[in-house]
């Protein structure tokens, strides 16, 4: 938890009340405001250095409009992901984003942190689904962007700006989403390889595969052990693991499972296990929940070229890091081992990983670690040329730096 301990909380029940609360604060005390949803990602970014008030979306959980035939939904941002999924399921639809702790995580929080998971390979991320927003700026001014139709280029796409902005620009109160149909069947192929080289060759072979997986994951033994025990399935965990997901009609998933099985047998796979539709939900769930941090000393996410991912995973594995990689997209989640108890030890693990990520045009960002370590380990990696622009946008939308001040460590957020 990285909000100051004395933080009190306001719980507005409508966009109007959010406006009123923020306007009153802006024209009065000018306290820092920390927007919170399910409080599952408060550790992300730099902790606020100043006391303030938490603005909770807990009471903003209504479904505003669900024209299911149009395959869009407008909801309040505080709706929790499981409730949203249940509502959509009743109409045979879904938002195909994998979210950890989905019973607590809210849509607004998922949007603010740009949460995603294994199926991003097939379905993309929040930026591909948010088509409209209502938000309130630090001064209490409400604004909208986008709309309720699936195709719309009127005005600047402020939806994109809000996604991943960690609540530093405005409080999102309502969201309109584009939806997908629920698939008839969802299955996974869990594959053990004797070595990383064989696994990487199999991933490269996917370029020519007749199949079209929606998820391409790579796990080391440590991570595989955690994920498998969480899923309560019987799957091999000893050795590099690749896991491929398929979704569609049963005919499509059956055909692809068999096809890829045959293709992988040509590619030196050591062991194969098919996870059926009935079992798949618990494995998807376990894969998503891997990103959740609990007792680990440090959790990071690295972005790399897909072609460099396994090289990185191997290096991290040798350093004892537990790894799940969305290998098709080059996104790697890692937990440092428990025996890393000092900043120096953490840095000695991270330094070579950060360097390798940077060599592949990538970066490594810290999801969670002890707050005092963040003074020495750059949370958002090496600054890139667009940080200056981010700073200017922050200054424009929140000139008094009231919303989540310091979260990104931008100059405009200096207190």
């Amino acid at each position, binding site marked *: 938890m990285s909000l100051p301990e004395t933080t009190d909380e306001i719980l507005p029940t409508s966009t109007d009340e959010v406006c009123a609360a923020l306007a009153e604060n802006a024209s009065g005390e000018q306290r820092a405001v920390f927007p919170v949803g399910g409080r599952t990602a408060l550790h992300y970014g730099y902790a606020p250095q100043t006391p303030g008030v938490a603005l909770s979306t807990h009471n903003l959980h209504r479904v505003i409009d669900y024209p299911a035939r*149009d395959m869009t939904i407008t909801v309040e941002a505080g709706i929790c992901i499981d409730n949203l999924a249940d509502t959509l399921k009743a109409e045979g639809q879904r938002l195909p984003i994998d979210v950890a702790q989905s019973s607590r995580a809210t849509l607004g929080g998922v949007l603010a942190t740009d949460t995603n998971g294994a199926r991003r390979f097939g379905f993309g991320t929040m930026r591909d689904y948010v088509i409209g927003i209502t938000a309130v700026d630090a001064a209490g001014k409400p604004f909208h962007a986008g709309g309720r139709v699936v195709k719309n*280029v009127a*005005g600047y*796409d402020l939806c994109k700006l809000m996604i*991943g902005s960690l609540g530093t620009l405005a409080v999102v109160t309502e969201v309109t989403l584009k939806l997908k149909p629920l698939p008839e069947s969802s299955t996974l192929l869990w594959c053990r390889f004797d070595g990383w080289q064989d696994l990487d060759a199999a991933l490269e072979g996917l370029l020519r595969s007749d199949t079209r997986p929606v998820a391409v994951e790579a796990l080391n033994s440590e991570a595989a052990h955690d994920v498998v025990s969480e899923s309560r399935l019987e799957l091999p965990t000893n050795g590099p693991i690749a896991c491929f997901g398929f979704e569609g009609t049963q005919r499509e998933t059956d055909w692809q499972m068999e096809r890829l099985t045959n293709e992988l047998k040509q590619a030196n796979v050591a062991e194969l296990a098919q996870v059926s539709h009935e079992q798949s939900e618990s494995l998807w769930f376990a894969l998503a929940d891997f990103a959740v941090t609990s007792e680990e000393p440090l959790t990071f996410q690295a972005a790399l070229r897909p072609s460099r991912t396994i090289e990185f995973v191997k290096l991290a594995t040798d350093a004892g890091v537990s790894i799940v990689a969305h290998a098709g997209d080059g996104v790697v989640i890692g937990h440092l081992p428990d025996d890393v108890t000092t900043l120096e030890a953490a840095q000695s693990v991270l330094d070579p990983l950060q360097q390798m990520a940077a060599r592949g045009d990538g970066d490594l960002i810290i999801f969670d670690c002890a707050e005092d370590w963040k003074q020495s380990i750059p949370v958002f990696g090496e600054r890139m040329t667009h940080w200056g622009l981010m700073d200017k946008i922050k200054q424009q939308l929140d000139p008094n730096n009231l919303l989540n001040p310091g979260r990104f460590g931008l100059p405009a957020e200096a207190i």
Partner: protein
Amino acid sequence: MSVDEMTTTSESLPAILDNLREIVGADSVLSSHEQLLVYECDGFVIEKNTPDCVVFPETTEQVVAIVKLCNQHQIPFVPRGAGTSLAGGCLPVGGGVMIALTRMRGIHEVNLRDRYAVVGPGTVNVHLTQHLKGTGFHYAPDPSSQGACTIGGNVATNSGGPHTLKYGVTVNHILGAEVVLPDGEVVQLGGYLAESPGYDLTGLFVGSEGTFGVCTKVIVRLTRDPAAYRTMLGVFETVSDATQSISGIIGAGIIPAALELMDQGIIEAVEAAFGFGFPLDAGAVLLIEVDGLEVAVDNEAKQIVELCEQHGAREVRKADSPQQRDLLWKCRKKAFGAIGRLSPSYCTQDGVVPRTKLPEILKFITESGARHDIRIVNVFHAGDGNIHPILLFDERDSEQVERVLRASDEILNRCIELGGSVTGEHGIGVEKISFMNKLFTAEDLETMESVRIAFNPLGLCSPQKMLPTAGACGMEHIERSHPARKAAL
């Protein structure tokens, strides 16, 4: 800064022409009246204004030098690709320097394993398609103008096209961009990778219609080719039967790759032009394409045929050979070229409604045409609810022109009332700037304006586009008077 202050180019022009020639070479600067005529408008020909000069940079460094020079002299500048924009996105309001990016057309890198390509902004969309042929990968957005339009222009307008229903629009396929900001600074937004920390400025930049800077390099995402297609033509007695079928198909959880509607009026013109064998007495046809695994497409196609028949289709034909598929798509993508057979001039609109409101908006369009005595035909992206009513008229008759404008406004206003938008893919540009305060509140526009200021504080880059407030002096005073030929996506 007001327009009057900005249009000071005539005084500083001779001096900067010499500077521009130093930057790009004398052959790469156009400044005579005759040369500039071509650049007085894009696909939106209602408003015209010539730039003071057109420059053709070939490198990012040259673009930087041009932009810095414009800043030094406080001269407005506007980037331009192939000029196929349908909303006046590259209209040089206030004159100034037009930066034509058509010579920056290299395909710098194609990386299949990492699923991206790096291209110059002037790369023609279809050239990238051709370049990738045979690799098993493609760049998904395929606007109907893809034979001419550039990737940089697609980025500026967030272009769509017929395959957006399943694959999304341009922004869903852009990983990063190199941008020369309005003050001449070069920034890299996004990159080669799926993730980059911080705000999604790539997503914000796409669709900003040239008001956030000049894009000098684009990193696009590549998509695996589908293993198989099935392309069908559903023939319906009425437009209403066709739109009901669309709701039926999507309601059944099938997302076709494309779902395009042509009504009787356009069928007649397309048949005369291409001789595909369309039934001339049909009320409407649906061009439906499913793609995916060979094992799946037949089943999907069969379901679609059944759904169409349930909703009263007279017949559903299949395009069995690749040649037939190509011809069918040619008929759709070149439909606008066939309209010359129907009338001397036409005006295409670009409204959006929720998909289930299609029957209602199409009925309204018919009524609006009757009310204003203007013939209107329809060819559009039905699956997305993105309508393109084509208003037919003779621009030599000013009274007809008035009626066309009234009917257009009425249709777009109705789209807003039905919960939709006034543009699905063509952009706001200058054409639809007066609709912005109907779609958005003053607060919405203020917030958008503040974001523009972060990128473009002086308003020199693409002044008076997109926002009614842009550049202080309102574009709302521009009278639209000559709707005329416009091709459409």
